């Protein structure tokens, strides 16, 4: 973890925002913009909720942030670098600095918990020795040390999401993006996952969470970016789900 800490410190020491959107628009079809002229920036080490109704453009925003999509207009900067210009190795390097968690967990059903987490390390070509060291460590952070040999099908929804968080964490991301991570979970389990994400943020990782969960947003009093019809409706430093401008 010390290597990660120094990488994180180096990242946080820079004066550029972690992510910055400048007049970003995105249309899947011509004249059908789902994101319209959105600008905001997220500082290093922040915890940010992105909220809004279904169809407000939250998930598209996450896809733009992780550079699964490219904006049709505007720029997105990661630590000062324009992500839409990234190609080949630069794009790969950028993605290795992100951790991503999805609503439907996206676990590999033919592999056990250990292999699901190890998979993220194999993709970035870590050695078996490093994998054997890192995977148990991250499984202990998410509280699943005793379930390393279980198949995802044998786990509860909350446990599966913990595996997904462990997989996102194992490569020591500078930014963690979570797209509706509690969407399929009951309130108690949702809180467990949110507390886990909060702990990760307290260790210095920038965390961005897209969510519908009013209770959690209201209770955690973090920065809230509210989207409506593809536009930025409000951006409040410490707020709840329904706070307006």
């Amino acid at each position: 973890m010390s290597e990660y800490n120094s990488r994180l410190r180096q990242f946080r020491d820079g004066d550029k925002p972690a992510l910055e959107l400048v007049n970003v628009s995105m249309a899947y079809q011509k004249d059908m913009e789902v994101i319209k002229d959105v600008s905001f920036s997220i500082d290093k080490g922040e915890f940010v909720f992105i909220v809004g109704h279904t169809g407000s453009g939250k998930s598209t925003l996450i896809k733009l942030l992780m550079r699964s999509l490219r904006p049709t207009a505007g720029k997105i900067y990661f630590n000062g670098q324009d992500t839409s210009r990234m190609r080949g190795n630069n794009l790969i390097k950028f993605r290795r600095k992100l951790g991503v968690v999805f609503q439907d967990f996206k676990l590999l059903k033919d592999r056990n918990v250990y292999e699901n987490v190890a998979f993220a390390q194999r993709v970035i070509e870590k050695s078996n020795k490093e994998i054997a060291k890192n995977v148990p460590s991250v499984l202990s952070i998410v509280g699943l040390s005793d379930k390393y040999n279980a198949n995802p099908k044998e786990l509860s929804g909350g446990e599966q999401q913990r595996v997904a968080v462990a997989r996102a964490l194992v490569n020591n991301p500078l930014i963690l993006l979570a797209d509706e991570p509690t969407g399929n979970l009951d309130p108690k389990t949702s809180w467990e996952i949110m507390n886990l994400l909060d702990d990760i943020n307290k260790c210095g990782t920038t965390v961005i969470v897209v969510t519908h969960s009013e209770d959690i947003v209201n209770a955690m009093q973090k920065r809230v970016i509210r989207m409506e019809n593809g536009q930025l409706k409000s951006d409040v430093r410490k707020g709840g789900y329904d706070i307006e401008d």
Partner: protein
Amino acid sequence: MKIRTIFYSIRQGFKNIRRHSFFSLAAVGTITVSLVLFGFFYFVTQNVEYIIDNLQSEIAISVFFNEDTDDEKISDIGDAIKAREEVMSVEYISPDEALEIYKKTYEQGEEFSETFKDFNPLENYDSYTVYLKDVSRQDELVEYIESLDGVRVVKSDKTVAKNFSLFNSVIGYICTGIIVLLIAVAIFLIANIISMGITVRAEEIEIMKNIGATNAFIRAPFMVEGFTIGFTGAVVPLLILYPLYSRVAEYVAGRYGKVLGGKLVFIPTHDIFIRLIPIMLGIGIGIGLIGTVFTLVRKLRR
């Protein structure tokens, strides 16, 4: 790519094959059938060519000279013919040798030689017998020799030469057509199998991309899959064809060995397979890799 990643990709490639074992078998089966047929056509074309080559060595043209052509001129004509690239060899037949050949060839030869004991009726019939490397170029050569000063007549069997070259060309065209078709079908099948593998693993591929996998890391297991299917699809037909060819060649040699003056002999098994093995492996692996690359380029654009 690191060594451990190569091993990981190989393991994943084999896992893919096992996961879609039915379709993998279907792909191997298709390549096997295609290459067995390819093997048959290869044997036919190669052996027809081999037999024709053997028979060609028996086909010759005879060149006769004007009565006033002197020895020096005849020698010059011989040199000019030898210089042609389609000519394999030129043999001079003197009038005395011609008479000897006549005696041996025809039943009434002895009677003939008794009649002409003191004089050779073929006195002015010295000639050249010209053997060709390629009978299809016989017409061209005949035309050339006829144009030479001092040549009276050139005798050749145009029908035999034409039929041999025509037969060989027709077999060649038919085989090429069928083989191209079979290879296209096999590539199409492999492409579909890889495409199915990509669809089944779409989520895994998406995760890999999001985590920051390199293109090589994502594509390598599919390449291993395509290579293995292609390689297996080439080895199986070789294992089928080797004993089969060996027995057929033995049977033909035993049963028809004396037909066509002993020229109906197949290429020895070892000799033909030395050439066939790399061709088959190349085609099999090529089909596997082309089908895979084609699908990967189409389906895995970033």
